[in-house]
């Protein structure tokens, strides 16, 4: 029977784990450490993996727990977003103003996604950003397609509410700032 080694799992799924953690809200500055955390668990548990689910489902589950723990720690430490959001890196050749605008957009998006539950965030980003189908997400997360759709609906509603709240707050600040001039 063919065998799979830890190294093979790492080589084949490193990119998947990295991307998953980023989608689940792990900051760019933390993601390398988070990937280590995931593969430490993989190293310990690989012998117990029986193949009842797909390897990616198993890895995503571990990534989800690692991301959740990091989210909790960040909340306790009151971490603020770093400047490298969603894996975007500054390119020195691009227009500075455009880059600043792009980063601002990413910061807004990240702050909205941070307010979603991690399950909703997973659904939302896999569907809207990674263009996965409902069925693919269901298989990856090990949940029914109906659950994927209902989570997505809730995530979209929450996304819009949070965005509307932010925009209202920004408008208020603008008006307030204008009022004291």
């Amino acid at each position: 029977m063919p065998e799979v080694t830890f190294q093979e799992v790492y080589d084949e799924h490193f990119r998947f784990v990295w991307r998953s953690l980023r989608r689940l809200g792990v900051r760019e500055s933390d993601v390398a450490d988070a990937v280590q955390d995931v593969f430490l668990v993989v190293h310990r548990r690989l012998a117990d993996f029986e193949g009842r689910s797909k390897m990616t489902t198993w890895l995503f589950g571990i990534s989800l727990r690692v991301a959740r723990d990091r989210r909790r720690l960040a909340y306790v430490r009151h971490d603020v977003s770093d400047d490298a959001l969603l894996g975007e890196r500054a390119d020195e050749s691009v227009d500075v103003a455009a880059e600043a605008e792009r980063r601002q957009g990413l910061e807004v998006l990240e702050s909205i996604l941070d307010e979603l539950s991690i399950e909703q965030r997973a659904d939302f980003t896999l569907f809207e950003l990674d263009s996965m189908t409902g069925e693919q997400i269901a298989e990856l997360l090990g949940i029914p397609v109906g659950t994927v759709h209902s989570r997505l609906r809730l995530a979209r509603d929450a996304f819009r509410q949070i965005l509307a709240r932010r925009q209202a707050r920004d408008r208020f600040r603008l008006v307030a700032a204008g009022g004291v001039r």
Partner: protein
Amino acid sequence: MSDPKRWLDDPGSATGFERDLLRGARDVEPPLGAQGAVWKALAAQLVVGGAVGVAGAAGTAGTASAATAGSSAGAVAGAGSTAAAVPRPRTGSRWPAPAARPRPVVRRPAARQ
């Protein structure tokens, strides 16, 4: 059950601002060299923790106790979660790479459709 339309694909389902926010966040690829760097840090940690029997591991352990680090690594795996207390080299740190890669082996699961 059919999927709803994606916000990025359907101008009618999301505002321009919502789509702009999403459009800027599609790429989350790891940077060049990240895979190797994380592997080195990971392998060094596994060697330090005594999780793998790697020849020459003693020279890579630095000041960490293999027994202590090993139990910490076990706690990480047992909880299925992160543990802030685990001594770890950060990616790209000065910790040296181990002499060999860790190689626990398991059966490959049957192919799934």
